[in-house]
């Protein structure tokens, strides 16, 4: 009986093949000759086998993105909601330049984590430290911050000099988007496209009179993808695009803006006026053609075109020195108006 008890304790070892050869032989011999232990062994094996019914789960892809972005190993820095951060570490002397930029992360997960800070202006909050720094670290992510959307006010105070804007939609199905930028630190804002804080932030990104920013075209492309969904329609975004259309000195940017406006509905009167002004005054015929297409979409969507618009269309259709395509488009649109 004592031998059976000892045998029992060895069974897990037998299962994991962790017994030496001699012990293993002895165990199997006992099991073969002892009905009680044989039953026990059968139950052990059934248990061990049933444990194998637990399937492997897949690691969500965002975990890798977060990891690589945290250590700065991914240049496109796909920052998405993260719940944990490293504690500040000492700053090393030779950091890669793009990592030496102070970085912060603003998170809009719609949760209550920073709910107490709802009215705070856009600013970088210290992130909760989760591990202690116990030695010289090879790099510092002290400036990487996590902020909740509810921690920042929709009203952006002052004119923060935001740079290197990037956009994130890690999971298209979760109604969460992200905007990443450098201020005095790296910031990523994520949240629903309809979140007012995000709308204002995006409008600000679009409106900033910094036409040399390489991110402007990306910004517009991205806004287009996100906000052409009628569920996300927002007049402030349209107004911001209208301003881009009026003011940007880069025709590529203006074309993107007008294309985006074309896809957005419903249009405000500000949008319509911007389209008409573009049609009248934009030096680039491609922009003027797109403006006509956008106006045509408005008409099809049921927006009544006022007398001023119709006058402009007539003038365009008959303007001798206008681009022929613009004239044809204007005439077409006029013929579509009831």
């Amino acid at each position: 009986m004592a031998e059976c008890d000892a045998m029992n304790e060895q069974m897990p070892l037998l299962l994991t093949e962790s017994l030496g050869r001699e012990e293993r032989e002895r165990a199997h011999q006992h099991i073969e000759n002892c009905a009680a232990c044989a039953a026990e062994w059968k139950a052990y094996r059934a248990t061990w086998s049933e444990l194998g019914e637990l399937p492997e789960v897949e690691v969500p892809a965002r975990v890798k993105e977060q990891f690589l972005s945290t250590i700065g190993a991914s240049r496109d820095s796909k920052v998405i909601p993260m719940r944990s951060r490293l504690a500040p570490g000492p700053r090393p002397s030779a950091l890669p330049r793009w990592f030496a930029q102070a970085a912060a992360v603003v998170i809009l997960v719609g949760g209550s984590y920073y709910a107490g800070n709802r009215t705070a202006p856009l600013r970088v909050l210290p992130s909760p430290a989760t591990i202690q720094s116990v030695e010289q670290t090879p790099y510092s992510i002290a400036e990487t911050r996590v902020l909740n959307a509810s921690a920042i006010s929709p009203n952006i105070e002052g004119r923060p000099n935001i740079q290197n804007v990037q956009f994130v939609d890690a999971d298209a199905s979760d109604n969460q988007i992200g905007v990443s930028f450098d201020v005095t630190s790296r910031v990523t804002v994520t949240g629903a496209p309809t979140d007012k804080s995000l709308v204002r932030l995006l409008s600000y990104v679009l409106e900033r009179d910094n036409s040399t920013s390489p991110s402007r075209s990306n910004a517009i492309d991205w806004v287009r993808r996100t906000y052409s969904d009628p569920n996300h329609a927002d007049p402030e975004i349209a107004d911001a695009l209208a301003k881009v259309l009026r003011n940007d000195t880069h025709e590529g940017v203006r074309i993107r803006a007008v294309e985006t406006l074309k896809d957005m509905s419903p249009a405000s009167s500000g949008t319509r006026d911007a389209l008409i002004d573009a049609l009248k005054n934009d030096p680039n015929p491609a922009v003027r053609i797109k403006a006509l297409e956008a106006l045509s979409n408005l008409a099809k969507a049921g927006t009544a075109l006022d007398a001023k618009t119709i006058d402009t269309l007539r003038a365009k259709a008959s303007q001798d020195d206008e681009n022929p395509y613009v004239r044809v488009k204007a005439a077409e649109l006029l013929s579509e108006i009831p």
Partner: protein
Amino acid sequence: MNHLSDQELMKIVQAGDYAPASEIYDRYSGRIYNFAFRFLKNAEAAEDATQEVFVRMIKYASQFQGDAKLSTWLFSITANWCRDYLRKSDNKAKEAEDVLLSLPASSEYSPERDLERRESELRVKRALGALTAEQREAILLSRYQGLSYAEIALIAGCSEGAVKTRVFRAMETLKKALTADVGGGGRWLNATR
């Protein structure tokens, strides 16, 4: 990069070049995540754990001994993180009560087979959930990660004898939980289809 050994990759990291981070992540993230997920019974926490483990791997790369197994070292970091997590009493409440079942939606499974698997899976999850954290840690590393008792002892910070006891007690409990209703509800339903 994928032809280099773990040790060679870690040497590069130790020299301050994080280029191998992605490769190392690909090698071990699945095991780390699954272990953390089963240990903590919480998918979100397991995500945090996985990310933190690899960040710590980079951060504390200098502490990795070239002659050690990287898997053992990574599981040590993971187990530490998980134990810290469980120690915070408010995290206990976050345990996902059920059922993040992620079976492959493969056509080879009939609905009945699928049901059987799900029942089995649920029973295993409940049974594992009933273990103490120490026992669960030991059985997860032994059964699912195939680690030796010596490795588990390093990871759990205890003696091999203690690991042996933990696995034994865990198996006793699991055996009772998993073999108790053989012939009962779920099996009966499946047997009569």
